[in-house]
């Protein structure tokens, strides 16, 4: 038996320059680039990414986009139905909403506002409204759009008002802030706990692993709603909104870290046996170098994917806790708190628009799930 003499890399036919450049681009692409190229093909995930970015932008600029002070109450304008913007009138293009007219209730003699088609409030861009802090730094009163020349108590109510006469549209915008960032804060905390405990568990194995795994199993086998109820009931009533907010974040992430810890542990266990990790070990590399140079970069993408799938769970947790009255409490505004108003069937039959906050919840959860799916598929560009 003879073996063909090895000819070094065969001289390939001269490629045209473009193909050569494309080849080099692929050959020199980093993990991030490969992941991005694969993620780009996942159109639904891409759209979801845009949706999520928009939602966070709304959360950051909520007050700028709002039209009416979300905390301003006025009993006279309770349960005003959503007001549409009328773009044209007899003079052509002239966006406006109807003003409010006080009507005395013939039975109770209470004064209540209802739309008055005879009075037009012009809708303008960059109008001055209530004062707020932009990004927590600048104090300003400029809003993207709003009405001009409104009388006291009058404004535009795109999605109607609640029982206390607060503008639902503005409240949903402001609620986005707490609902989205509680998820983020919770995930950061779970990520820290998950990577730390999962990493220790996977790396050291033995009894450490055993103990951590049993803790995870116990935590996961406790029914979440009663656990939350217990923990939330333990929060002192005297705490202010910020304190409750952080306490709720911690409660939510106490459960959330277990998933991430499992992912991280699994990756560590799998990677410890990978040939390239063994190769690094055999070349005499230190433990630290093996972990940080070889193992961690191999699963950052998995962590990112797991995180984007954990976020919606956090958001849902906050929403359901607040909906049940166990989470944040008014005057804090979150989607769950807004939905609390929609608990009562009698209120709901009179003012169905109070259910609108469920729409952004659904949208964000779906978008995060699609994004997580796309990221998970793209996470391992070498798989």
């Amino acid at each position, binding site marked *: 038996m003879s*073996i063909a003499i*090895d000819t070094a890399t065969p001289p390939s036919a001269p490629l045209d320059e473009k193909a050569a450049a494309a*080849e080099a681009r692929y050959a*020199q*692409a980093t993990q991030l680039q490969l992941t991005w190229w694969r993620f780009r093909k996942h159109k639904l995930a891409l759209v979801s990414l845009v949706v999520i970015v928009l939602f966070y932008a709304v959360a950051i600029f909520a007050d700028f986009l709002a039209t009416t002070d979300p905390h301003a109450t006025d009993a006279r304008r309770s349960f005003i139905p959503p007001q549409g913007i009328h773009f044209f009138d007899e003079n052509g293009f002239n966006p406006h909403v109807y003003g409010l007219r006080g009507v005395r209730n013939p039975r109770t003699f209470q004064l209540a506002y209802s739309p008055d088609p005879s009075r037009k409030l012009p809708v303008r861009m960059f109008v001055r409204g209530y004062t707020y802090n932009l990004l927590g730094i600048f104090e300003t009163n400029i809003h993207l759009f709003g009405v001009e020349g409104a009388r006291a108590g009058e404004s535009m109510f795109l999605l109607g008002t609640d029982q206390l006469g607060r503008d639902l549209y503005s409240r949903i915008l402001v609620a986005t802030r707490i609902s989205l960032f509680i998820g983020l804060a919770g995930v950061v905390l779970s990520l820290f706990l998950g990577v730390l405990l999962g990493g220790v568990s996977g790396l050291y194995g033995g009894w450490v692993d055993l103990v951590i795994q049993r803790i995870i199993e116990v935590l996961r086998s406790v029914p979440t709603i009663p656990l939350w109820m217990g923990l939330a009931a333990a929060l002192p009533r005297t705490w202010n909104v910020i304190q409750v907010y952080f306490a709720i974040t911690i409660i939510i992430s106490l459960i959330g870290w277990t998933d991430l810890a499992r992912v991280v542990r699994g990756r560590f266990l799998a990677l410890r046996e990978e040939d*390239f990790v063994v*190769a*690094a070990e055999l070349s005499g*590399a230190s433990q630290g170098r093996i972990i940080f140079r*070889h193992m961690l970069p191999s699963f950052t993408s998995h962590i990112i994917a797991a995180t984007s799938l954990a976020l919606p769970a956090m958001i849902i947790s906050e929403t359901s806790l607040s909906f049940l009255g166990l989470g944040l409490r008014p005057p804090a505004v979150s989607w769950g708190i807004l939905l609390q108003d929609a608990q009562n069937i009698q209120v709901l039959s009179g003012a169905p628009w109070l259910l609108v906050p469920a729409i952004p919840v659904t949208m964000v959860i779906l978008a995060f799930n699609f994004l997580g799916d796309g990221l998970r598929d793209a996470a391992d560009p070498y798989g």
Partner: protein
Amino acid sequence: MNLLEVQDLKKHYPIRAGLMRREVGRVRAVDGVSFHIAQGETLALVGESGCGKTTVSRCILRALTVTSGAIRFATSETETVDLATLPKRQVRPLRRHIQMIFQDPYASLNPRMMVGDIIAEPLKVNGVPAAERRDRVAELLELVQMPQSARIRFPHAFSGGQRQRVGIARALALNPRLVVADEPVSALDVSVQAQIINLLLDLQDRLGLSMLFVAHDLSVVRHVSDRVAVMYVGRIVEVAPTDTLYRAPLHPYTEALLAAVPAPDPSRRGRRRVAQGEVADPANPPPGCAFHPRCPYAVDRCRIERPELTPTGSGRYVSCHRAAELDLVGVR
């Protein structure tokens, strides 16, 4: 003095059961293996899957803790250490002397590192300065016949054969005294196998490489090895210089392995005996000779008494009761 002497190497895995994790049995993955490798020599370790050949190689690399036995390794012309008993901390500085070529070139290269960095990794962790590393990487790429442009490319841009060249370059980076090649061509296409085998031959010539070449069949080892050790269920059943072993095997298992080598000549297919049945379970090996349930020549004695590995002259060893009386078929 031999570069490596392995004596009565054992690696057992306890089988634990129950709440108290009591040991209820042992998987004798490697059960008393002895061999040596001389300076500049290539020894092939051959056997079916699960015979313990990979375990032996991992024990030598101290990727596994040895149960018992000695692995005497000459770290220099005058100095010898026993790798089997050395504490883990003292093994690390010795790692540079024994390097490994992996079976799967797709798994053995970190996909997140450029080829240049992969080859330079052993140099870097052993404190070679950057300028020297650059020159050495260039030299190594040339040695394994890879273009210099590979340096800034990632492994995903290369084929299996090319990746294996990178793996070989990495293994050679520190000028190791011994290279353990764990089935370096099994994962490759046949045409590429030939190229890698030729590269290894070339390196043996040029660098005087000492190598432990692990393989699961006899078809590839003929070209690279000076001697062959055949393993079956944790033990060596035959050791012989390559040519003699191929021409006149002494153990029925060697004959069976040789019969499995594809023969280009159809007229030689007459008396071929391919082993029937499954490899014995190392947790529960059969009494007597472990090969007897599959052996066409087995007699009563083989079922009761375990044969020892005994020398038969001219550097040959075999563990078979009937070695002297059998006339076994080899290949030309």
